[in-house]
C-alpha cells in the first residue's frame, strides 16, 4: 500500500565547477523504500564526491524513511570524502529533518539552483 519509491540519477555542475550527482526521489519515503534508495546509493561510482538528494517529487516521508537517509549519511561519512546535500523538501519536512538533526550532517536547500550554488 506504499507508493513505490522511484529513484532517478542525473548529473549537474556545481557553481564551483565540480560535477554533482543527483539522486531524485519520487513517491513515498518509508520503510519499503529502503532497497530502492540504498541500491541507487550503492550504485554510485566510488569517484562521486558530491551527491544531491532531490525530494521535490516526494510528498510523504515518515520516520522510517528518514532513518534510510541517516543510513546514507552515515555510509558517506564512513567512506570519507563524500558530501551529501538535500533539496526540495517542503517547509514541513525541512523542519522535521532539522528536528531530528539531519540538518547537522547535510546542508538543506529549497531548490536545485540554490543547492548547486552552495556546493
Amino acid at each position: 500500500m506504499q507508493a513505490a519509491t522511484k529513484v532517478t540519477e542525473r548529473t549537474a555542475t556545481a557553481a564551483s565547477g565540480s560535477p554533482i550527482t543527483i539522486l531524485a526521489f519520487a513517491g513515498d519515503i518509508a520503510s519499503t523504500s529502503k532497497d530502492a534508495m540504498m541500491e541507487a546509493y550503492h550504485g554510485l561510482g566510488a569517484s562521486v564526491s558530491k551527491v544531491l538528494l532531490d525530494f521535490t517529487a516526494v510528498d510523504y516521508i515518515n520516520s522510517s524513511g528518514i532513518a534510510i537517509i541517516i543510513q546514507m549519511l552515515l555510509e558517506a561519512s564512513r567512506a570519507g570524502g563524500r558530501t551529501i546535500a538535500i533539496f526540495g523538501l517542503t517547509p514541513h519536512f525541512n523542519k522535521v529533518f532539522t528536528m531530528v538533526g539531519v540538518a547537522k550532517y547535510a546542508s538543506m536547500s529549497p531548490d536545485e539552483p540554490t543547492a548547486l550554488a552552495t556546493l
Partner: protein
Amino acid sequence: MRSGSNVEVCLPSELGFEKVALSTAASMATLMGFSADRVEDLKTAVAEACINAIEHGNRLSDTLSVSIVLSTTDDQLEIKVLDHGSGVSKHPESPDIDRKMHGDEDPRGMGMFLIQALVDEAEWYQGPPGKSFVRLVIRLDKENK
C-alpha cells in the same frame, strides 16, 4: 460544528494505511480552522502514531485493527490511536544524531520524539488488549504562536 462531534476510523494493521488516517485527520483539522502548517504537523504525528500501532502494537497482524478516534471541542482536536498491544512501557531517549552517525544508536527510533514535538499534548496509555493508546491534542489557541 457541534462541539463533541466524533469521527472514528478503523484501519487494517498494514503499513501504508497510516496515510488514510492522516488524510482523515488532516480533513478534520482543516474543517476546524487549523492552519496549513499545523495540519502538516498533525499529519506526521498521526502517521507515526498509526505506524507504531500497526507495527509495535498489532505486530502487523491481519486479524487486528487500529482504531483512530477524533474528537472535537470548540478549541481543540483530540486524536486517540488505539491498538491491541500492551502499550508503551518506557519512553525511549530522544534521538541523538551524533550517536546515530557514529553507529552507536539505531538510525530508527524517531517516531515518538516527532509525535511529542509536533502536537500540543501527547500521552501514551497502557491498557488491556485493544485499549492501549496514544492521545494527541492540538489546540486552536496555539495557532499563530
